[in-house]
């Protein structure tokens, strides 16, 4: 409850007219962003606490800590970019089944994705354009995005297992063909 309150309060402050309309002074905009960011971090801890209870445990081991990537829209996620093997747990907050697409920034050119039912999930590797790429000064920005379909249940979650795959056959199946025109 205490952790949730931080985001509630930040959202409350951001109901002020200048935050709603974007007419605040620049230093105030930074302050709103900081408050919201702190609130979101606290809520991520709450989600992790929930997953600790809900995810299946392997004997006495506790489930691994879930990490969040809030910059995937600029093709940036330290987990998916740097790890060759990871899981993605997708929570669906709507009370009906939804299907959606995940786009994860990655460095490898082919991956195996296995769904919660243990079956292979079709995936595609899409090159990240120079413009879409994250901060160029980063040591190893993602070159590709891994795209696949997820179907979490209503008000529930589904876990997908992702691992780098160097097989040529998988690479051929997942790659994207490009054609460029200048007008």
């Amino acid at each position, binding site marked *: 409850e205490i952790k949730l309150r931080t985001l509630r309060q930040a959202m409350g402050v951001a109901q002020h007219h200048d935050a709603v309309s974007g007419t605040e*002074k620049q230093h105030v905009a930074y302050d709103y962003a900081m408050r919201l960011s702190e609130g979101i971090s606290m809520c991520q801890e709450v989600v992790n606490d929930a997953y600790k209870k809900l995810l299946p445990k392997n004997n006495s081991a506790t489930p*691994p800590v879930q990490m969040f990537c809030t910059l995937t829209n600029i093709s940036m996620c330290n987990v998916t970019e740097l790890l060759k093997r990871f899981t*993605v747990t997708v929570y669906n907050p709507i009370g009906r089944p939804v299907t959606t697409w995940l786009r994860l920034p990655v460095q490898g050119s082919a991956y195996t994705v296995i769904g919660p039912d243990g079956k292979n999930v079709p995936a595609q590797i899409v090159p990240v354009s120079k413009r879409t790429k994250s901060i160029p000064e980063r040591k190893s920005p993602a070159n590709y995005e891994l795209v696949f379909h997820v179907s979490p249940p209503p008000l529930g979650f589904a876990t997908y297992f992702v*691992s780098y795959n160097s097989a040529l056959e998988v690479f051929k199946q997942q790659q994207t063909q490009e054609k*460029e*025109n200048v007008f």
Partner: protein
Amino acid sequence: YQDMDLRNEHISLIFDQTTGLLKQMTNLDKQITIPLQHEFKYYQSFAGNNSKGIYEASGAYIFRPNGTDAYPLKTNMVTKFMQGILVKEVHQTFSSWTTLVTRLYQGARHVEMEWTVGPIPIDDNQGKEVISHFATDLKTNGIFYTDSNGREILQRKRNFRPTWKLNQTEPVSGNYYPINSRIYIRDETKNVQLTVLNDRSQGGSSIQDGCLEIMVHRRNLHDDSLGVGEPLNETGSDGKGLIVRGKHYLVLDDIKSSGRVHRDLAEQLFMAPLPSFSDLKMDFQQWI
């Protein structure tokens, strides 16, 4: 060169062979086809004279273009077509600071348009207000629809207010309305509706019949003297203007079916599934 047809099971988009711009959209299930031209344009901001009250500049509080024309970005456009088993994309570079990725996912009934705009150049000492502009041949009779607060859709009529006699002095911004989740136009005779959903609150309008425009980014050089005390001229840590990235979702359908499609989609966008990641120390067999 030939027209490029980007299609999945439900939607087809045609990109023009000479300009590289989107020129047609088809709902394949309902056999609805409309000419649809999409491009990015910008209004020049009114510099104003704050010492005289009625000449307020375009600023944080006020969108006030210097004239009624929006200028297209004039450069050689580079278009990249990308095709794979799950998603087909068209990457368009309108200028060095404006790009767009149009996506059609397998099985999707909507088009995803991810725009990246900025840093808006101001070396010509001219503030700019950038819009994403859709032009169709729909007969809309000056009427369009926006949601007032993400809940209720309101009918808007160009140069008209329902409760008083309007003396319209700002033909562009006087017709702008908040779009918190969606804007649409419809042609009653053709029974066609074009809906655009957004991922954040923006301003938008239908300045000409059959057209939709949504403001995606602004950079002004003057304060509008309404209280904020500084121009809307944000810079990043590198001192350049901000780069903004967002998405618009396009739905073309008949009028009766559109509500169901855009309401479902909007709920899914607003309460999007939340992904989280964990490092894995085991192989798949151990994990399963």
